């Protein structure tokens, strides 16, 4: 059994006992990349030499008996919106091409302290805005299960990387579903922690009250391991929670007895693909066979999630992306010879407008425009404030649900991976992909997508569990129970 098919948790044990060296492990994944990456296009940057150098250093340190970090010698891929000192960070946008961060994101610093081997940076939708990774200005990433299909987004590169076994661990970010949806479409595990669980310092901000970084892995125990390494309060991020980090990696294999799962009836409407509905219902039956009790839960405001999200997220984005103006970093348009587009336009404004026009893609422009409009005088109350009020109602729906059940269970997406180009000309249709995932971000709760089946066409299906904030321990243990009773998570595409 090849080293590639083992979990990172198992690889870690083999590294510890000396059965395996980090150079061997890293070389094995670099070989995977060599043979498969041209088909998948998951990476925007591969650190081949640095990864091997780092692996060698770790092996040497281990041989001298030096204490090592929790991920010592294990390759990790990182989404291209996480700042890594001295390494190009583009967020898959032209406006940041050539940008080299002068600092590490806290999660990157934590990976380094844990002695992980940073193997490369993964493709994404530009500034994390999208559900297919087609909005990347760099390249398209292909779903390893069907190369003509999208891998999901915005963390499509990280999802494809894990599905194609190009790295054992990856980081993604999730603002409206961007970890969970690509995880479902690529047949892997993706966890969005509670808001504030993982520091956002160094994550290029899309929507500050919604963004969270999270693990994307081949199995639940690896997600628990990665969460444990990354979680915790950070003085650099004033929105990070001062809540103790549980022993997620230790407790993950312990089943939960007396587990109650809530099924939200509003989820099972007409838009849901029949095969997804059957797989999710089958997953619920598996939980029943494991002793769980199912309760039917009402979440009266769940169907307003998309409308609420597609006001709040663009509003926050319009503010966060104002910094990309050609002044301090990134692309600056040459406006020295161009004429003013309006009589009173000063040279600086012209620089801002031209730099941003040239640097941002269509979807990013659309969301900036939407947010600017919704926050402008005369519309602020009707849109932004209104959306924040509905947000509170959505949060109350969750609070009420968790008084009656431990976790919620339901679909992750309404559709399985579709063909590239299918929804790119219809923004609204694309937004509907986030139907089952946005409410978790709005409410700040945790959610995990785990593989639970395949369509007849051979495309992966995921099931989502959600927990109350800071109950990732319960979430992971319940997810592990399902994994232990099934083998969907072991399936990998053929190459």
């Amino acid at each position, binding site marked *: 059994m090849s080293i590639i098919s083992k979990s990172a948790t198992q690889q870690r044990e083999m590294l510890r006992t000396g059965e395996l060296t980090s150079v061997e492990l890293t070389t094995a994944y670099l070989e995977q990349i060599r043979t498969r990456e041209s088909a998948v296009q998951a990476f925007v940057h591969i650190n081949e030499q640095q990864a091997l150098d780092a692996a060698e250093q770790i092996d040497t340190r281990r041989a001298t008996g030096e204490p090592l970090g929790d991920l010592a010698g294990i390759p990790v891929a990182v989404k291209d919106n996480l700042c890594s000192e001295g390494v190009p960070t583009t967020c898959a946008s032209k406006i940041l091409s050539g940008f080299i961060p002068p600092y590490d994101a806290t999660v990157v610093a934590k990976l380094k302290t844990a002695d992980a081997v940073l193997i490369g940076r993964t493709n994404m939708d530009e500034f994390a805005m999208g559900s297919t990774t087609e909005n990347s200005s760099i390249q398209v990433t292909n779903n390893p299960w069907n190369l003509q299909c999208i891998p999901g987004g915005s963390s499509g590169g990280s999802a494809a990387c894990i599905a194609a076994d190009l790295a054992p661990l990856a980081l993604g970010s999730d603002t409206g579903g961007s970890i969970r949806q690509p995880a479902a479409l690529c047949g892997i595990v993706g966890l969005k922690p509670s808001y504030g669980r993982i520091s956002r310092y160094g994550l290029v901000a899309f929507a500050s009250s919604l963004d969270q970084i999270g693990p994307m892995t081949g199995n639940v125990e690896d997600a628990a391991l990665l969460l444990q390494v990354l979680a915790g309060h950070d003085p650099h991020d004033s*929105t990070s929670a001062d809540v103790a980090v549980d022993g997620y990696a230790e407790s993950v294999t312990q089943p939960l007895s007396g587990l109650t799962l809530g099924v939200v009836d509003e989820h099972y409407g007409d838009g849901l693909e029949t095969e997804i509905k059957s797989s999710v219902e089958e997953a619920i039956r598996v939980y029943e066979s494991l002793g769980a009790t199912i309760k039917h839960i009402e979440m009266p405001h769940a169907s307003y999630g998309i409308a609420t999200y597609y006001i709040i997220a663009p509003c926050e984005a319009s503010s966060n992306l104002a910094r990309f103006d*050609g002044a301090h970093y*990134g692309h600056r348009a040459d406006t020295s010879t161009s004429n003013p587009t309006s009589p009173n336009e000063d040279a600086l404004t012209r620089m801002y407008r031209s730099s941003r026009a040239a640097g941002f893609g269509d979807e990013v422009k659309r969301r900036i425009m939407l947010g600017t409009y919704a926050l402008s005088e005369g519309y602020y109350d009707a849109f932004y404030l209104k959306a924040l009020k509905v947000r509170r109602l959505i949060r109350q729906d969750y609070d009420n649900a968790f008084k009656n059940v431990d976790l919620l269970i339901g679909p992750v997406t309404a559709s399985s991976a579709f063909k590239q180009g299918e929804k790119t000309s219809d923004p609204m249709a694309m937004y509907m992909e986030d139907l089952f995932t946005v409410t978790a971000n709005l409410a700040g709760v945790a959610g995990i997508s785990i593989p639970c089946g395949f369509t007849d066409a051979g495309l992966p299906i995921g099931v989502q569990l959600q927990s109350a904030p800071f109950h990732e321990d319960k979430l992971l243990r319940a997810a592990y129970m399902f994994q232990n009773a099934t083998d969907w998570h072991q399936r990998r595409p053929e190459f």
Partner: protein
Amino acid sequence: MALTREDVEKVSLLARLQLTDDELNSMTEHLSQIIQYVHQLDEINTDDVAPLAHTLDITNVLADDVVEDCLSRDAALQNAPQRDEECFRVPAVL
């Protein structure tokens, strides 16, 4: 409740985006569709509901007023499209 092309032009100035004619047309169409969709929130009575901007129960997280090491000037200017010894250089405003 559609947006006019004029509305979109005004917003593009606020957003510091220079849009082409084609972009103004498609933006007007797409934004109108999205605005129409999000108006469904009007169906919900939120008279007695306070806005929720933030999901963590924390306010005014302050740091001690202590001088610490920070980014060097050179590191801060590293990515500047135009710079001199001390500053970022931009087109004159005055």
